[in-house]
Each structure stands twice: as C-alpha cells, then as structure tokens.
C-alpha cells in the first residue's frame, strides 16, 4: 500500500471523529447529491416541448432553452435585443475594470461613468431606434444595471457621508448621522415602497419621474448608508498623525484627504466593500415587489406561461447557478485582492 493511500485511509477513517465526518459526507452525497444529479443530469430532458418533458421526466432544461431569451432580457423588444446584450457586456466590462487594481486611477471614474452612460443610452434605444421605455427593460441588464450603478453611485456619496460624520462642524455631522441611521434603520423594501408609491404622490400634478430611476435612486441611497459606515471604519484605521502630517505640509483639507488619508482608508476596507457588493447584487432581486422584472423575476414569470406551466425548479436552479457564478467570482476576487494588496510593495 502506498503512502498516499495510507494517508487517505487515516484521514477518512483514522479515528472516531473522522469516521463520523466521513459518514456524514457519504450520507450527504447519497441523500442529496445523487438524487440531484439524477434529476439534473441523468434524467434531464434537453430538447422538445413541455409534453416531451412530462413524458421523459427529470429536469426540463428544454424549458430554459425555450425561455432563455425571456429570462435574460424580459420584455425587451426582440428586434433590438442586441442593444440589451451589448449593454450587458458593457456593464460587465465596467464592473471588471473597477475590480482591477492596475486601472485604479483618476481615469477610471471617467471611463466608468462613460461606460454606464453608454449602457443606459443603449438600453433606452438612443440613437437612433425607437425609444424602449424602462417598463420594457428586464432580466440580466436590469440586475446588472441596478447593482453596478447602485454601487458606483453610492461610492462618492458614501465617502462624503463618512467624512461628514467625522466633521468638526456639528451641523454637517448631525445631517450625516441622521441620514445614515434612518436609512439603516428601515428595511430596503420600505425604501423601495416610498420611492415607488409615496414619492409620486408628493410631486406636483403632471410631473412624473420614471419608476426605474426612482428605484435606482432608492438603491443608491440605501447602499450609501451602509457603505459610509464601512468607509468610516477605514478612516478611523488611519492614524491621526497622517492628517496632522498633511496639515503640517500646508495641504488643504481636501488635498490631505484625497492624497493621504483616503487611499489608506479605502485600502483597509476593500474586503468589506466587496462583501457589500455581493450583498447588493443579491438585494436587487427585491425590486420584484414593486413589479420590476429583474433576472430572478423574469425566471419566475417564465414558469407561469401555460405552455410551460410550473417549471419553477428549473428556473430557480438556473438563476441560482448564474447568481452563484457571479457571487463566487466576486468572493474569490476579494481573497485574491487581499493577498495582492498585502504583498510587500503593493501600491
């Protein structure tokens, strides 16, 4: 018997605890993984109609194939769907660019903003096609747009809120504290309700603001409160001497913050920011309570078509897989980034 095999044996059955753990895993595989694979792979139906599916049993991936366009793009007009697809790619590109440390420069903000504006214009159908109203937006572009713009828009606000909360001027500090605590004190759903239902009633007659925009602003405000607290934690990790050194050099407050304090503060909290990003990406699914069709909601609605009635297992499994890939990538990225920034000589 080779040494490795012996190690394996010891690891699996070496003592009572190890035997128990091995048995636990075996049971898990036997009771959950095997039936799942049986359903999802072995018995699965890949092609055909719902009749084929109900005859052959197993997971009906034919449903996902038939509904792929609807789940991904929702009610977006079919003839200009390429616009939504390009917008998706652009949004992903912006998200990736924000994640790469090499791109962290003053140009990033300009590039990111430009990318987001182009993505929104593409989705709206300008130029030159017919206007696609935000009610027709749906699926992946909506989820990506809400999360990316939600995070990107919240960032400057969060930095300002965090600085204001540390301000020596009581009035400004008070404003920031009240905003942060109020927003953190209520669930996201009620902020969404206020933005979509109460806010229009307060507008003067005839004036109206797009529902998507209202939800987006609500998300930005919500995220900014949480992000501000993360940034504040970063600020307090920077020794007071750094600020004093800046002052001693005759730098203005803004220069001190921009050149000395913020770079150190933000670097310290990057893992928390990525963690927040994962949370926000998933929180965007809540817009389904105000009738918006994000990726999760289009998948759910796809299974209400009488032609394909009730394939909720398949649609949720599909959506879960996509969300998992995105969130897992982000979480691996966060680990990598921590190591990258922790290495000696990291900027």
């Amino acid at each position, binding site marked *: 018997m080779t040494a490795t095999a012996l190690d394996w044996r010891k690891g699996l059955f070496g003592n009572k605890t190890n035997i128990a753990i091995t048995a636990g895993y075996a049971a898990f595989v036997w009771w959950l993984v095997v039936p799942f694979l049986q359903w999802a792979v072995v018995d699965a139906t890949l092609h055909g109609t719902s009749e084929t599916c109900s005859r052959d049993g197993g997971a009906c991936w034919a449903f996902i194939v*038939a*509904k792929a*366009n*609807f789940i991904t*793009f*929702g*009610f*977006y007009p*079919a003839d200009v769907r390429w616009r939504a697809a390009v917008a998706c790619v652009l949004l992903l590109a912006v998200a990736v660019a924000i994640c790469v440390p090499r791109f962290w420069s003053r140009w990033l903000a300009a590039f990111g903003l430009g990318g987001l504006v182009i993505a929104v214009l593409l989705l709206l159908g300008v130029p030159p096609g017919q206007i696609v*109203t935000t*009610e027709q937006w*749906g699926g992946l572009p909506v989820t990506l747009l809400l999360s990316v713009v939600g995070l990107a828009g919240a960032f400057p606000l969060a930095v300002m809120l965090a600085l204001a909360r540390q301000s020596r001027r009581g009035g400004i500090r008070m404003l920031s504290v009240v905003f942060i605590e109020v927003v953190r004190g209520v*669930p996201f*759903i*009620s902020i969404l*309700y*206020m933005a*979509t*239902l*109460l806010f*229009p*009633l307060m507008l003067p*007659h*005839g004036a*109206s603001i797009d*529902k998507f925009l209202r939800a987006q602003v609500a998300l930005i405000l919500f995220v900014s409160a949480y992000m501000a607290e993360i940034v504040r934690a970063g600020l307090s990790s920077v020794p007071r001497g750094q600020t004093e050194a800046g002052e001693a050099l005759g730098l203005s407050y803004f220069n001190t913050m921009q050149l000395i304090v913020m770079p150190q503060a933000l670097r310290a909290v990057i893992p928390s920011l990525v963690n927040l990003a994962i949370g926000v990406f998933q929180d965007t699914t809540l817009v*389904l*309570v*105000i*009738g918006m*069709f994000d990726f*999760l909601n289009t998948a*759910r*609605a*796809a299974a*209400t*078509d*009488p*032609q*394909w*009635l*009730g394939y*909720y297992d398949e649609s*949720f499994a599909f959506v879960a897989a996509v969300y998992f890939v995105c969130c897992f990538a982000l979480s691996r990225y966060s680990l990598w980034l921590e190591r990258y920034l922790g290495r000696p000589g990291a900027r």
Partner: protein
Amino acid sequence: MKPLSSARMRHWLGASAILVAAIATALPAQAGSVLDAINQRGKIKVGVGTSPGFFAPDSNGKWQGFFVDFGRALAVTVFNDPAKVDFTSSSPQQRLPALQAGEFDILLSGVTETITRAFKLGFHFGPVIFFDGQGLLVKKSLGVTKGADLDGATIAIQAGTTGELNIADFFRKSGKTFKSVVIEDSREFRNALDSGRVDALTQDSSDLAIQRTQLARPDDYVLLPERLSKEPLAPAIRWGDDRWLEIVNWTVYATIEAEELGITRANIDSFLDTSDPVVKRFLGIDKSLGEAIGLDPKFAYNIIKAVGNYGEIFERNVGKNTKIGFDRGLNQPWSSGGLLYSPPFR
C-alpha cells in the same frame, strides 16, 4: 412568488403596504382626465399580475391571458389597435396604491370588488369579468360531492389569506367539524394533498385550478363546484373620469353581448348582412348608435375581430381545453345559468 418570501419579509411587506395605502388615501387623488392622458400618450397603461392563464408572458415576452385580452379589447375601443396598450406587472401588495398614484390607467390584475375599496380607496369597478370564490380541491376517491361531506376532514389553508376565516365560518354554519393545517409555501400546500397529509385544499378556485395542474396525477382530484366566498374580480379605475369608466364598462359588455348573440371571431362577418336590428346596432352596421355616443360605430365589431367574444376569451386562456381547465360555472351568460348579463346596446 411564495417560495421567495419568508414570514418576516411578508410581515414587512404588509406593514409597508398598509402604511403607504394609508398615506396615499390621505392625499387628494390626481385630478385631470384619464382619457386625455391616454390619448396624449397613445397607449393605455394596464396593471396586471402574474398567474398562469390570467396574465403570463409567453416565450417572446408578449403578455398573454384572460385579463390581458380585456386590456387589448380596451385598446381596440380607444385606438382601434389591440397593440396600443402597455402591461405592467405589479405585486399584490403594490397594485392598489400604484393605481391611486396614477401608475396605471386601469388595474386588470384580478382585484376583488369590495365596498371598502370602492369608498375608502376611491375606486370605480367595471363589470365583473371573472366570478371567483373560495373552492375546495379534493381527491376523487373520497367520493365527496359537496363541502358538507367533508365532516371531520383535514383541510389545508394558505397562510395570510382570508380563506381561514371563510372555511371556519362555513363549517360552523353547517355544524360540521374539520381540522385545519395552515401552510405558508405554495408548493408545500400542494404537496400536502399529494402526500395524503390533508384531504382537501381550500383557496380561491382559480388558484386551485392552477394548483391542480401541478399535482402528480391531476386527474385524481376534483375541484368541487361549491364556492365558500364571493370574489368578483373586476377592472378597477380611479374616481374622476366618468367617460373612461363607461368605455371600460361597454368594452366588457361588448364581449358578453357578442356571446349572447352567438357572434364569434370566426363567424362575425356572416352577420354583416343581417336584418336583425339588434345585431345591426351592435356591430355598427347601423351607424347612428356610434355617432350618438362618440365612439367608433364599429368598436364592438373590432373588439370581437381582435380578441373574440367573452366565451372565446375564456376558453382560449383558462377553459376546459387549456391546462388550467377551468369550468365556466358562474362565468357564462345568464341565459345558460351564469351571471354574465350585458345591458342592451341601444
């Protein structure tokens, strides 16, 4: 939608919706003509839900369903074009305040008409287009034909609905007993019947009809014809535009009248040379009626051409030959024992 929401989330949803509704009612409703806004926009904004057969997107992202077809019929009346309508899905918690806030011109999401909604929320209701009610779904092998036969049975109820109260009242009235099992998740609800944990499910019958199709062996179960509650589902609009209300009313009546007269999408053109004055007025062959009311004289003709009569809309979306397999029950003309009755077109 139910698999997503935990009890806690639902609690917040409910509380927030009530708060918003309360504040919304305290504010004055938006003035101005709804019809003017529709004409200016060139489209009708319709609020719908998502439920198979009633309103659901097809694979091309186009809305289909029973209520959706009435939205298309309205677009025919106003614009003579069934495509000039935008459907927006809204959640049950959001739809009523959203109508008040002016997000839709009309709500065709299966709203139950009640006196509170009429007075306190300030809604007008058009004609009832679907007579729903709480029903009982039971196993055929039990040999039960009416609710009272379920003496001592175990019945599953979905949490957070008025169903619990209705079923308790029903059994108290008939002096029978039953055991209730309250279930939150809609799949668990169904599984309870499939696994034999309960003898029957109770819920709005339209919902039960859909639940039945999802059971392992749908044909082993039957939806009892009895209804324990009244859930008349009607189009809802805000107070303040009487002409818009009449357009809603008579668009629905046109589909009902056509069925009474035996006019269908297929045979409508054979009626064009009729000598029956009722049909002539209805189809606008005699133009005097349309001119008098200020609508396209052929609006009823156009509606039937586009979506068919009430019976056709029903059968196409939720009828016996669809997966929903709903029985017409009360939803047939009064002349066949139902409750549909159109006032005369004259």
